[in-house]
């Protein structure tokens, strides 16, 4: 079990209904993909946010990562849609 700060942006934030939270994650959740799967079981909003895993990007400690990235040691994990800045 470990405690992680989670942040959400754009429609991921709107669907989860949450901009920022601190969550205790079971130790079986090892990767970003595991975490997304774990979150999607929390409620309908989270399920909706993560229903198309390919459309959700992630960052660990403010650096882009892939779904297979390990979350161990992370202080802040972010989930968001593909970026549309510029």
């Amino acid at each position: 079990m470990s405690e992680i700060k989670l942040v959400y942006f754009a429609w991921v934030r709107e669907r989860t209904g949450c901009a920022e939270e601190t969550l205790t994650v079971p130790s079986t959740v090892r990767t970003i993909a595991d975490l997304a799967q774990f979150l999607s079981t929390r409620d309908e909003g989270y399920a909706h946010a993560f229903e198309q895993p390919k459309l959700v990007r992630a960052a660990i400690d403010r650096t882009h990562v892939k779904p297979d990235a390990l979350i161990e040691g992370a202080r802040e994990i972010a989930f968001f849609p593909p970026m549309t800045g510029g």
Partner: protein
Amino acid sequence: MSARRTIRIQSEPFDSAKETATLSALGSDIGAVATFIGYCRSENGRLKALELEHYPGMAEDEIGRVADEALARWPLDALTIIHRFGVMVPGDGIVFVGTASSHRAASFAACDFLMDYLKTRAPFWKKEILADGRVGDWVEAKADDDAALERWKR
């Protein structure tokens, strides 16, 4: 001389003329200044505004990494990147990228590279505010933008 690296993430408008002048005034060996300004568009009157959400902290970090990559690839004397967040109306500048170098090819390539990377890596998201004031959809990322990145693979 080490390159001058200016990165600003702000809600306030920027003054592209002033930013360009700053790049140009760096010295008597700046031969080339390339700039790009991205504006909010109305899309033929469909949009009243765009609202840009960003990830504070990561926006600065990620744009910094992209800037460092450009400085490592091209002999630049300076680069300036300004990206705004908040509500913009058509005609407002959203992003400014400017590069200064002794040489034309470097300034162009770096400016183009920076924009391609900002589009796909900088943590900003645009939401449409429709002409009648209703909140519209989040702008979808374009496959084109990812394709553009392929050009820079070495």
